[in-house]
């Protein structure tokens, strides 16, 4: 399936510091359209009909999220753009924010109007402080041009915590607290930021909104697979000739992305979705990239034949143990226990029973962790045990 630029359509075409260059390319036309039509329900209907799903990894239907927030009682509502891109191997949102901040602002203003929110927040990860100026400038220009009359956007910078990309932890952080996951329900569209109805969308999800409004839901839903519509932006890194950001129609094959575009050779395995993402061996390289199969937030890390699988999984678990917020036991203790076991395998001191222990621990963590971090933390272990069991067995102590 082909490359297609919807999310990245303006990147390297407009000047991210000049709103006029965005307006020239139909910028703010979608916002004008929805404000003229005065029918917020129709916006939500269009987004629902388009089949757009969240691009941050979870894939929740965007239109449904908006509808829930719109129907929630109360005058005070919020829209949050999750720009806390912290997943290992992900840098697509950095690329988008750097090159086309205006589409994001327009999308947030549309979302705000659709659900009845007058205030929006962009939660920008601390590591992306250097993008703050571009974003502030873009918001300033949109305000000067009287494009944000109904809506106010504030940027909140993170302070360095992977878990804050998780929506409930992110809201805790905006409220000035430790970024720990919340118990759910209630979900954000009912009780989110400051316990008010809130929609929280990933940068890339929002980037799709203005094109859908302008071109129609059907235009969008024609692209992709049955349950994955539109395109996805991938961040490709690791053992590839051409690392970078690529946008493909959903359902495209992994091979097209990593071999044809990113020029990977002698692939051993690919991790899709970062530290908590799925790991596929090379013989599954023709897997389509979609919500039905593998996707995550679109981080694609390629490992060639020279790489030691145990070493990679060990490092991945170390990362997750460091970044676990520590609130719930299965994640806090489970990731630590996995680090210890993986360490012993990496030293060639694994025990036969450790494999069963890893499997049991994995299912306990997946079942009982409070948020996506802990639930998905065992993925690298589960997948490598499934596809590369030899790698573990070869490291079992002979003594």
């Amino acid at each position: 399936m082909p490359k297609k630029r919807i999310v990245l359509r303006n990147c390297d075409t407009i000047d991210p510091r000049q709103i006029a260059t965005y307006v020239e390319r139909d910028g703010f036309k979608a916002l004008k359209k929805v404000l003229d039509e005065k029918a917020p329900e129709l916006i939500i209907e269009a987004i629902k009909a388009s089949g757009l799903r969240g691009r941050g990894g979870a894939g929740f239907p965007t239109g449904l999220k908006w509808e829930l927030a719109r129907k929630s009682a109360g005058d005070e509502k919020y829209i949050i753009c999750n720009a806390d891109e912290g997943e290992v191997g992900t840098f697509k949102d950095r690329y988008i924010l750097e090159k086309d901040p205006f589409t994001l602002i327009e999308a947030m203003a549309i979302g705000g109007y659709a659900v009845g929110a007058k205030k929006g927040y962009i939660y920008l990860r601390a590591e992306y402080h250097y993008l703050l100026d571009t974003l502030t400038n873009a918001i300033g220009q949109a305000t000067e041009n009287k494009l944000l009359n109904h809506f106010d956007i504030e940027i909140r910078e993170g302070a360095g915590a992977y878990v804050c990309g998780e929506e409930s932890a992110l809201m805790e952080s905006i409220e000035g607290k430790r970024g720990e996951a919340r118990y759910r329900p209630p979900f954000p569209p009912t009780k989110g930021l400051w316990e008010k109805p809130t929609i929280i969308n990933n940068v890339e999800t929002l980037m799709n909104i203005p094109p859908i409004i302008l071109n129609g839901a059907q235009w969008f839903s024609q692209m992709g697979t049955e349950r994955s519509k539109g395109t996805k932006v991938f961040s490709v890194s690791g053992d590839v000739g051409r690392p970078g950001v690529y946008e493909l129609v959903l359902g495209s094959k992994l091979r097209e992305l990593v071999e044809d575009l990113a020029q990977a050779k002698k692939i051993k395995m690919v991790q899709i979705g970062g530290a908590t993402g799925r790991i596929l061996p090379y013989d599954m390289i023709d897997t389509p990239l979609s919500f039905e199969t593998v996707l995550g937030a679109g981080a694609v890390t390629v490992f060639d034949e020279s790489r030691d699988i145990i070493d990679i999984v060990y490092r991945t678990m170390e990362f997750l143990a460091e970044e676990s917020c520590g609130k719930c036991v299965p994640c806090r203790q489970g990731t630590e226990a996995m680090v210890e076991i993986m360490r012993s395998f990496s030293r060639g001191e694994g025990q036969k029973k450790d494999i069963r222990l890893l499997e049991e621990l994995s299912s306990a963590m997946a079942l009982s962790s409070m948020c996506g971090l802990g639930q998905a933390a065992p993925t690298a272990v589960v997948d490598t045990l499934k596809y590369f069991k030899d790698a573990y067995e070869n490291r079992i102590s002979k003594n």
Partner: protein
Amino acid sequence: MGKTERKTTLRSKDEKSLIVALKEAQNKLGYVPQELMVELAQRNGLSLSEIYGVATFYSFISTKPAGRNVIKICKSVPCYLKNCETIIKSVEQETGIKPGQTTTEDGRFTLQLVNCIGACDKAPAMMINNDVHVDLTPSKISQILNGYK
């Protein structure tokens, strides 16, 4: 002041967020001194331990004084695949400090190893203060560090 009431104070969206206040201090002083935490606790009607809990949760906020320039080398998998180990070694040699340490005689550098900074397409990468340095090789390190006094 009751416990519920105290929680509400922290939840007030009209006040400057606690994290914003902590980050301001971090940017100005390089760390958050205990006196400030005490002051923030009193001002917000919170216990000191709650403030301390927030301050220590985030990796960009430090409760200990740091060097004038904080070097953060990415050690996550994509940078690891591109030999970040050699970059770490090179920075250690240039500065004479190990991760977690600060140059003692001049307080010029603090060295930290951090998780993914979102520059995997140009790995290995590091940040010094708010600047990102990418496509690193050991031979580039000396010149880059010279730019930070």
